[in-house]
C-alpha cells in the first residue's frame, strides 16, 4: 500500500484543531498557520505526484467499516484541483483572521481547521455516505463561525443558512439510500458506471438538485448567501465563497451528470432557465447594493450561474469551463472578500459610501483591488476569463439564446464591479477617517500577493490546471454522450457562392458589353 497522503492531509488539521482548543490565542494562531501550511505543502506534493493521464482514481485508500460503508479515499484530477484550492486558501484565511479575531481564538482556529478536514474529505471521499458526512458536516463549522464570530445580525444569517441547507440535505440523503438499495454499493467509482432506470433518475436528480442548487447557490434559493457573507468574519467569507460554493458544482459533476445523464438532459432546460434568470437578476441587484460584501455575494450568484449553465452544456468546453470558473471564482471572490476585510478592519463598516479616494492613501491596496476587480469582470489574462470563455463557448454549441443571455453577464459584471471600484478607490477623499487609513501591511500583502499570482498564472497558462482534469472530463463527456442534447445551431453547408461578396466585373468585361 502506498503512502496514505490523503489521510495525512485529513489528520494534520484534525490534530491541530484539537490542539488549538487547549492553547492560548497566540499559540493557536501559530499552530493553525503551521498546520495549514503543512497541508498546503502536502497538497503540492499531491499535485506533483499526480499522474496526469494515469489511472482515473489515484492515491486510493480503503478500509471497510460496516455494512458496505467504508472509509474510502481517492482523487481524480477534478478533486485534485478543488483540494488544491482549499489548501491554498486556508493559510490565507488564518492570516486574515490574525488580528481581526480576538475572542475565543482557539475555538475559532479549531473551527477553521476542522473545516479544512471536511473540505478535503468531501473532495477525496469515494464512499457515498462518507461523502455525505463530510458534505453536511462541513456546514457545522461554517455555521459556528458565522453564529459565534459573525456580525450583529449573525443569528438570522445562520438560521437562514441552516434552513436552506436542511431541506436539500434531507432529500439528498433519502435519494442516496434509495441508490444504495438499488445498486447495492456505496462505492462512488462503481456508482459512476451504474445505470439507473430513467424514471428513477428523474426523482434522484431532483433530490440531489435540491441540495446542490442551494449550495451553489442558484436562483431563487440564493438569499441565504448575501446574509451569510455579510455576517461572516472575513475569513469565513473567503472560505464560503472560495470553497463551500464549489460543493454544489462538484456535486453536479460527481453525481448528477455522470450518474443520471438522462435526467440531467431532461432537466437541462430548468438549469438553463434558472441560470439565465440568475445572471440578469442578481447582476442587477448587485448594481444597487450599498454594502460591499452583499455586492460581491450577489456577483457570486451570477458567476455560479455560468458554472451551472456550462455544466449542462454536456460537452468538454462547457464542463472544463465550469471547473475553471469555479477555481477562478474561488480565488478571485476570496481575494475580493479579503480586500473588503482589509478596509473593514480599519474602518469597521462595509458601507460603500463611507470610503472613497483610497487610491490616494492606499495605492498598493488599490492596485490589488483593481486586479481582482478586473479578474472578476473576466478580463483575458486572468483566471475568470478562461473559465467563462470555455463555459460559454461550450454552451453556444447547445443553445445560442442561453449563451446570449448568460454572456450579458460580462456587461453587467463590468458595470457593477467598476461602479464599486469607482466609489471605493476613485473620487475625492470624502471621509477624513477613510483618508487616514494606512496602506497594506506586510501580513496583508502576503495574503493578497499569492492569490494575485495564481490568478494571473491561471489566466496566462491555464494548461497547468486543465491538464490534470482533461482525462476525467473527457470520460465524463463520454459517459453523458448518450443523453447529450442537440444544439440549436444545426449548421447546414450549402452551395458556396461563386464570387466574393464585393465582386466587381473586370474593366474589359464592362467595355466588352458595350
Amino acid at each position, binding site marked *: 500500500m502506498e503512502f496514505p497522503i490523503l489521510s495525512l492531509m485529513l489528520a494534520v488539521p484534525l490534530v491541530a484543531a484539537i490542539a488549538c482548543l487547549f492553547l492560548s490565542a497566540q499559540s493557536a494562531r501559530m499552530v493553525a498557520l503551521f498546520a495549514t501550511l503543512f497541508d498546503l505543502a502536502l497538497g503540492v506534493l499531491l499535485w506533483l505526484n499526480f499522474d496526469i493521464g494515469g489511472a482515473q482514481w489515484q492515491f486510493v485508500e480503503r478500509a471497510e467499516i460496516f*455494512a458496505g460503508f467504508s472509509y474510502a479515499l481517492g482523487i481524480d484530477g477534478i478533486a485534485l484541483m478543488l483540494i488544491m484550492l482549499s489548501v491554498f486558501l486556508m493559510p490565507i484565511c488564518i492570516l486574515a483572521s490574525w488580528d481581526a479575531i480576538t475572542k475565543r481564538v482557539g475555538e475559532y482556529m479549531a473551527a477553521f481547521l476542522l473545516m479544512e478536514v471536511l473540505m478535503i474529505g468531501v473532495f477525496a471521499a469515494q464512499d457515498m*455516505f462518507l461523502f455525505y458526512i463530510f458534505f453536511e*458536516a462541513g456546514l*457545522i463549522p461554517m*455555521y*459556528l463561525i458565522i453564529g459565534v464570530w459573525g456580525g450583529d445580525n449573525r443569528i438570522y444569517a445562520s*438560521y*437562514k443558512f441552516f*434552513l*436552506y441547507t*436542511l431541506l436539500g440535505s*434531507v432529500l439528498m*440523503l433519502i435519494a442516496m*439510500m434509495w441508490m*444504495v*438499495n438499488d445498486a447495492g454499493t456505496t462505492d462512488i467509482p462503481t456508482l459512476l458506471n451504474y445505470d439507473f432506470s430513467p424514471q428513477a433518475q428523474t426523482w434522484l436528480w431532483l433530490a440531489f438538485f435540491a441540495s446542490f442548487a442551494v449550495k451553489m447557490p442558484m436562483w*431563487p434559493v440564493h*438569499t441565504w448567501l448575501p446574509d451569510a457573507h455579510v455576517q461572516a468574519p472575513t475569513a469565513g467569507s473567503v472560505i464560503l465563497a472560495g470553497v463551500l460554493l464549489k460543493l454544489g458544482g462538484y456535486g453536479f459533476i460527481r453525481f448528477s451528470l455522470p450518474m443520471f445523464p438522462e435526467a440531467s438532459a431532461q432537466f437541462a432546460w430548468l438549469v438553463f432557465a434558472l441560470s439565465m434568470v440568475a445572471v440578469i437578476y442578481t447582476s*442587477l*441587484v*448587485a*448594481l444597487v447594493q450599498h454594502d460591499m460584501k452583499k455586492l460581491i455575494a450577489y456577483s457570486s450568484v451570477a458567476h455560479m450561474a455560468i458554472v451551472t449553465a456550462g455544466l449542462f452544456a454536456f*460537452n*468538454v*468546453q462547457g464542463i*472544463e469551463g465550469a471547473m475553471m470558473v469555479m477555481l477562478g471564482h474561488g480565488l478571485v471572490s476570496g481575494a475580493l472578500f479579503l480586500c473588503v476585510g482589509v478596509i473593514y478592519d480599519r474602518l469597521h463598516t462595509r458601507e460603500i459610501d463611507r470610503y472613497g479616494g483610497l487610491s490616494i492613501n492606499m495605492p498598493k491596496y488599490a492596485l490589488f483591488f483593481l486586479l481582482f476587480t478586473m479578474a472578476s469582470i473576466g*478580463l*483575458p489574462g486572468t483566471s475568470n*476569463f478562461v473559465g467563462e*470563455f*470555455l463555459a460559454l463557448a461550450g454552451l*453556444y454549441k447547445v443553445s*445560442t*439564446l442561453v449563451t446570449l443571455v448568460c*454572456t450579458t453577464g*460580462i*456587461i453587467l459584471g*463590468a*458595470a457593477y464591479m*467598476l*461602479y464599486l471600484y*469607482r466609489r471605493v478607490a*476613485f*473620487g475625492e477623499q470624502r471621509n477624513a477617517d477613510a483618508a487616514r487609513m494606512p496602506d497594506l501591511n506586510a501580513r496583508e500583502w502576503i495574503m493578497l500577493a499569492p492569490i494575485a499570482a495564481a490568478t494571473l498564472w491561471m489566466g*496566462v497558462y491555464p*494548461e497547468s490546471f*486543465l491538464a490534470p482534469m482533461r482525462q476525467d472530463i473527457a470520460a465524463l463527456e463520454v459517459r453523458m454522450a448518450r443523453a447529450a442534447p442537440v444544439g*440549436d*445551431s*444545426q*449548421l447546414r*453547408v450549402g452551395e*458556396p*457562392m461563386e464570387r*466574393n*461578396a*464585393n465582386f*466587381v466585373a*473586370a*474593366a474589359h468585361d464592362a467595355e466588352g458589353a458595350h
Partner: protein
Amino acid sequence: MHPILFIVFLPLLAAIVGGFINKSAPSVVAKSITTGALFISCALSWPVFIGFWLGDSTATVVPVLQWMQSGDLAFDWALRVDTLTAVMLVVITTVSALVHLYSWGYMEEDPDQPRFFAYLSLFTFAMLMLVTADNLVQMFFGWEGVGLASYLLIGFWFKKPSANAAAIKAFVVNRVGDLGFMLGIFGTFLVFGTVSIPEILEAAPSMSGATIGFLGYRVATMDVLCILLFIGAMGKSAQLGLHTWLPDAMEGPTPVSALIHAATMVTAGVFMVCRLSPMFETAPVALGVVTFIGAATCIFAATVGTTQWDIKRVIAYSTCSQLGYMFFAAGVGAYGAAMFHLFTHAFFKALLFLGAGSVIHAMHHEQDMRYYGALRKEIPLTFWAMMAGTLAITGVGVLYVFGFAGFYSKDAILEAAFARGTEISMFAFWMGAIAALLTSFYSWRLMFLTFWGKPRWADSEHIQHAVHHGHDDPEDHNPAVQEDAGHDVTHAVPSPNYEAGTGGYHPHESPLSMLIPLGILSIGAVFAGFVFKDAFIDGADFWDGSIYFNENLIHALHNVPYWVKLTATFVMLIGLAIAWLAYIKDTTIPAKGAEQLGPIYRFFYNKWYFDELYHYLFIVPAFWLGRQFWKLGDVGTIDRFGPNGVAWVVEKGSVGAKKFQTGYLYSYALVMLLGLVAAVTWVLF
C-alpha cells in the same frame, strides 16, 4: 530571436518596471524607462515594415506559449507578423513613442507621472498583442487589454467625477460590443472547429452558402458570424449606436486622446475587419451592414462636430467620422484604402490632438474655443503643426501633382464607394462626400476660432485663474468645460477689442518635448499619403495576401469619372469657404444660423440626443429593476415566503417547535442523526 518579441514585450516590461518603481524614485526614472522602451520598439518596427514594403519579408508566426486546450478547442500565445501587422506596428509604436515624449512636457506638473507612463506602455503592449494575434482569442485579449488601459487612462484624474463616469462608460459600452465579439468567436468555433485566423480564412469560402440556427431563426452562417464580430468592432471603433463613449473619453489627458482615441485603439475595429477580410467577403449582408453603419457614422459624427465648442470634442467627433470612412471603405471591398486611411489618419489625427493639447497647454487648460482667438502669432509652431494636420484631414491636394495625406486616402475611399456601384455603396459615396464638406467646415472652423480673429481669452475662468494666481495648479487640471458649455445656448462668439480680450494673459509656446512630436507627425501628415499611396492602394504584392485584395475594384476605382475624382476637392473648398465666411468675414453668421436652424442646430449640438436616449432606455431601468428585484424579489417574496415564512409558521406553531428553533445546532445535529439512523435502518433491514 525575432525582433517582434522585443517590439511587443519591451513595452510590457517597461510598464511593469515603471509601475512598480512608481514614486519610490524620481519620476524621471519611470519616464525614461517607458519612453526608452517605446523608442526601441519603434526603431525595431520600422525595419520590419520597410522589409514588407520592399517585398523582402514574408509572413511569419512566432510562437510564445501554449494558452488553452479544451477538447478540440486549442490555441496558443503567438505573434503573427505580416504586411497588415507591420503597418499597424509602425503606426502604434511611432505614435506611442511620440506621445510618450510629448507627455514629458504636457504632464510635467502632474504628481502622478510614473503611473501615467506605465499605463501608456501597458496600453501599447495590449495594442501590439491585438495586431499580432494569430487567433481570435488573442485578438480578444488585446482587445480587452486596450479597453483596460483606456479605462485607466480616461479615469487617470480619478478625483474628477466626470472622468470616472467617462471611464466606466467607455468600458461598459465597449463590453456591449464585446458581447457580439465573444458570440462571434463562439459561433466561428462552432462552424469551423478552430479559432486560428488563417484556418478560418481558408475555410470561410466553403461556408459561404451555409445556413445556421441563431436564436431560433435560420440565417446565413457567414453573415451572422461576421455581423457578430462587427458588433465588437463597432464598440471599439465607436460606430453609430456604440459611439457614445468616445466623446466622453476626452476627459482623459490629451496625449491619451491622441494615442488611444485617435491613432490606435479606435482603429482596432477597422483592423479586425481587414484582418478577417476574406471572411467578410463571403458575407454580402454583413458587408452591407458594415458599409451602412460606416457611412451613417461618417455623416452623423460630422454633423455633431460642426456644432461643438470644446476643441477636443470637435476632434473626437472628427475621429468618429473618419472611422466611418474606413468602415465603409472596407464594406465596399477596398480594404487597402481602409488601411491607408487608417495609416494616414493616425498621423494627422494624432497631430491634431497633440496640437490641440499644445493649445490647451498654452491657454492654461481652457478647452472652449469661444475663449480662444488670435493665437497664430502667440504660438506659431503649434499653429503650423495644426495647419499641416488640417490640410491633411481636409484632403487638400491637386490631382496628379501633390496632396497632403488625407487627400489620397479619402479620395481613394470615395472613388471605391462610387466604383463599387451598388445602392448601398452609392449611399456611402454621397454620405462620404457630404461628410467631407462638413469635415472641411469644422476643421477650418476650429482653425479660425483658435488662431484667427481677436483674442477672447479674458472671459475664460481658466485664464482669469492663471492671471490672478500666476501658476499652474495641477489639482484643477482639465476641469470639465463641457458642463459650462451645455447651458449656454446663445452661441454668440464674443469679440471684444484686442487689449481687453487678452485679459492680460500671455500664452506660451510649448516646450521642445512637445514640439518635436508635433514636427515629426507634421512630416507624416504632409508626406505619408504621397509616399505610400501606390503600395497601400494598388499593392497586391505589398499586401501579399494579408488582406483580401479586390483587383477588379481597384481597376474600377482608378477609372471613375473625373467629376468623382474632383468631388472631394470641390466639397473641401466649399467647406472652407463657408467656414471663412462665418468665422472670419462676418462673425455674426454662426449665431444667426444657429437661431434660424433652431431645432436642427439643437439636434446636432446635443449629439442627436443619444446620451439622453440611452440614459432613459438602459441606465434608469437597470437601477430601477435592480432595486425591484432586491426589495420586492429577494426580500419581499423569496425571504418572506421562504425562510421568514417558515420561521413565522414555526413561531406561531407550538411550544415544541419553539424549542426546536432555539437550538439550531442541536436540532441540525439531531436531524442528521435521525437521517443517519434512517439510512442505516433502511440499508440493513
